[in-house]
């Protein structure tokens, strides 16, 4: 199937848009360029709706509540929403025909009960020179040509691109998607139906042969049938249990992972102990800080500070006192001597100092003078002695400086340690906050519970296997008895031959089915690796490469191997570009191996991709088919920034370029006003190097686009 064109009417802001796609095998690419909000995703959804109706749109809680019409449509008036898709289909015989699929529905916007819609009117026509012929039923045809359950392969949104690889999708769901895609696209599903049909025919023939061989044989056959039914019941039970086991194992894996993450942060008790130690250390640091500050305060009121600051002037005072002492002004000892001499009446020189003597009068005058100075001298003397006492006790002008440095150093050391400890404490507390203790307990309990259930399941599977083995033994015995009976009483020869042929066919079909499935998976796996490594530019045997290989496991998981052989987590160990590369490689390899001709429409595939990977990715997914590759069609919905770096490649491989724009962007981004009453999306045929009156944007000059002075509407 190759899509030739789509016409969209009244779907969101696409009031009347027609887009033609390239169906040229030599230029399989159609580039639909549009900036954010221009309508690329609207186009994707319109096509999905056109093909699959509301089921095709993204799953939301209430799909019917999704509005198809623009919010600008007047309330109360029914609007005909219509999508018409014209496509080519080549049948199994190699005949190619053109079809037109038209889906229409009436939606009434803005009423109280939401957006009531009528029944979809879906019509499919085969286009022929003699006139269009309706094809019935249209939905079934579309489901056959491009099955809805595989729509992820054909229509991929850049944001949902990890559906086939992401660990965030439940593993059984992911595996089922890959498995289903492989079975459907490679025709294995049809073979399975065929095997079931042959089994059914074989069973009927067996019953008929037994019925014709007498009541004993019939009874034995009925016994075998009953046993087989019991085996089937047991197998069904086993299948149910296995599915349940898978779901439980998925949960177990997720819970273990979450628990390991939580435990990886740190054991709670250990963290609590660490936090207590850190808090204690914090307190000790704070105490050290406070002690250093207290020492400083003590130093502020101590004598050393006084010496340190005013020592020079204090020493000057002391020096003056010493000078007075040297001049014998202090201490004043002459006062006592003079008093003693006057009392004795004899001078120290032997002269008479008795009353009436001439010298006594002179000595008395000296005594009076000394008495006047005695008070100040006394004070100076005392001060001199006090000063000497202070000096003797420690007149160290450097003591304060030493103490200052010591207290500052102590404070700084304590403070630094406090800051470091605080950081450690905050980190530990953050870690502890991250550990949701309740969640750890819940997970532990859940894991214990699910572990037990899985264990019970394994035991139950074992019991079922034993029962099946016993039943199969009984069937073998009965069949042996039956063979003996049948040998004695031969049934209709033709019937026996038919039965035997049917049995041979059954065995053959089952073997073919198993082999095909294995072979196809291997082929897809090999091609997947080839494409993926080619896109990301890795060599499997390169010593320094990160990736060694990609494969599809028996469980239909897509796994990426690292250089040292370990499996990489596609969510966490693959960057965005590699994730996209892997998904695209899977889709491409699958379609190549299946030889399917189908559109591959991808919305914004190149986000997060740049440089060489971007070049190789575009080259891989857009190159014309070579050798035995079937024709294919690639429709890329790209923003301007995605086109950067790969413009030339796109121009080489693109058969059609379309630019879509939305009038709501005028005047902020668009240059021209389209003069409409409401915002609408329009398409023009401009390439990434052109602009016209529809798509011209204010930023175009910066990109050097060639302006076509016309509306290049299509």
């Amino acid at each position: 199937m190759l899509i030739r064109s789509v016409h969209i009417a009244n779907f969101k802001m696409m009031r009347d848009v027609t887009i033609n796609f390239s169906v040229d095998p030599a230029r399989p690419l159609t580039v639909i360029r549009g900036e954010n909000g221009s309508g690329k995703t609207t186009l994707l959804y319109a096509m999905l709706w056109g093909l699959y109706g509301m089921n095709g749109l993204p799953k939301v809680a209430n799909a019917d509540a999704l509005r198809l019409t623009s919010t600008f449509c007047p309330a109360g008036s029914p609007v005909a929403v219509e999508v018409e898709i014209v496509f080519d289909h080549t049948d199994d015989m190699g005949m190619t025909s053109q079809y037109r699929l038209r889906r229409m529905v009436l939606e009434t916007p803005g009423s109280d009960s939401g957006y009531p819609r009528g029944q979809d009117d879906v019509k499919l026509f085969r286009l022929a020179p003699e006139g269009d012929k309706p094809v019935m039923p249209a939905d079934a045809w579309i489901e056959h040509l491009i099955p809805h359950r595989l729509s992820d392969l054909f229509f991929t949104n850049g944001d949902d691109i990890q559906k086939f690889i992401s660990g965030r999708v439940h593993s059984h769901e992911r595996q089922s998607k890959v498995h289903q895609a492989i079975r459907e696209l490679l025709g294995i599903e049809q073979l399975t139906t065929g095997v079931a049909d042959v089994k059914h025919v074989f069973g009927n023939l067996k019953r008929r042969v037994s019925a014709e061989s007498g009541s004993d044989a019939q009874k034995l056959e009925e016994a075998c049938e009953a046993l087989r039914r019991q085996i089937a019941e047991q197998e069904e039970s086993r299948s149910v249990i296995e599915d349940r086991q898978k779901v439980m194992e998925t949960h177990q894996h997720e819970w273990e992972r979450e628990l390991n993450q939580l435990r990886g942060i740190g054991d709670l008790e250990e963290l609590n102990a660490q936090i207590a130690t850190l808090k204690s250390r914090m307190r000790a640091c704070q105490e050290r800080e406070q002690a250093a500050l207290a020492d400083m305060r003590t130093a502020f009121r101590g004598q050393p500070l006084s010496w340190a600051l005013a020592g020079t002037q204090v020493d000057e005072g002391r020096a003056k006192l010493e000078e007075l002492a040297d001049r014998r002004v202090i201490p004043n000892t002459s006062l006592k001597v003079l008093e003693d001499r006057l009392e004795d009446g004899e001078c120290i020189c032997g002269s008479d100092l008795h009353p009436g003597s001439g010298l006594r009068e002179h000595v008395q005058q000296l005594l009076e003078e000394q008495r006047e100075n005695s008070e100040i001298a006394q004070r100076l003397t005392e001060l001199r002695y006090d000063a000497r006492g202070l000096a003797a006790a420690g007149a160290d002008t450097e003591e304060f400086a030493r103490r200052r440095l010591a207290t500052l150093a102590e404070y700084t050391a304590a403070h630094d340690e406090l800051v470091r400890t605080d950081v450690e404490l905050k980190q530990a507390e953050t870690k502890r906050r991250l550990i949701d203790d309740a969640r750890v307990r819940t997970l532990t309990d859940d894991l214990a519970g699910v572990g037990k259930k899985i264990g019970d399941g394994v035991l139950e599977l074992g019991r079922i296997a034993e029962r099946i083995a016993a039943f199969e033994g009984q069937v073998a015995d009965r069949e042996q008895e039956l063979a003996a009976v049948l040998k004695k009483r031969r049934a209709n020869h033709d019937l026996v031959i038919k039965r035997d042929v049917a049995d041979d066919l059954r065995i053959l079909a089952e073997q073919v089915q198993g082999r095909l499935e294995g072979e196809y998976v291997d082929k897809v796996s090999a091609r997947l690796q080839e494409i993926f490594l080619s896109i990301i530019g890795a060599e499997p045997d390169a010593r320094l490469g990160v990736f060694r290989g990609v494969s599809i496991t028996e469980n239909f998981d897509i796994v990426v191997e690292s250089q040292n052989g370990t499996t990489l987590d596609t969510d966490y160990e693959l960057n965005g570009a590699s994730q996209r590369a892997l998904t695209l490689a899977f889709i491409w390899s699958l379609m190549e191996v299946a030889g399917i001709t189908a559109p591959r429409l991808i919305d914004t595939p190149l986000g997060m991709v740049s440089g060489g990977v971007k070049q190789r990715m575009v080259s891989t997914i857009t190159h014309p088919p070579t050798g035995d590759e079937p024709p294919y069609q690639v429709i890329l919905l790209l923003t301007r920034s995605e086109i950067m770096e790969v413009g030339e490649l796109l121009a080489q491989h693109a058969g059609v370029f379309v630019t879509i724009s939305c009038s709501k962007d005028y005047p902020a981004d668009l240059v021209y006003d389209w003069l409409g009453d409401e915002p609408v999306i329009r398409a023009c045929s401009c390439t990434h190097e052109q602009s016209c009156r529809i798509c011209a944007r204010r930023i175009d000059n910066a990109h050097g686009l060639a302006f076509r002075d016309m509306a290049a509407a299509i």
Partner: protein
Amino acid sequence: MAEVINRYAAADLFMPDDLHRVIREHVGVNQPFARQIDAWWIGFCLGVRHGQTRPLPAPDKRVKFMDGAVLSSDPWRIIHLELVAVGLRGEEILTRPREVVQLATEHANYGLEMLVNALTGQNEPTLALMNFLDPAQL
């Protein structure tokens, strides 16, 4: 050492009002100064070290924070005060206690301004003050 006689016990000790408002906020438990006299004394030492004074402002712009009796609690301060006074003004000044107190007050006023500048706006004033009181830099 014999008991030091405090001849300044009767004298009033003043600070300029604007400086006192800051200093009193830094006196008390876990503050740089246990008592206002401790701040005043450092101010005095700073004024002496720089050889600078600031006159006592008018009575309405000054605050009596204590009297000279407080000096008795640290007798060495009396000795330092008198030695500084003798060094600066000669031994005669000791006969004029009021002049000694005035000399000290004017030096303290200068130093208190430096202290206030060092303390203002600091998260840990004690630490800031210790950083400031670097004899090598003052």
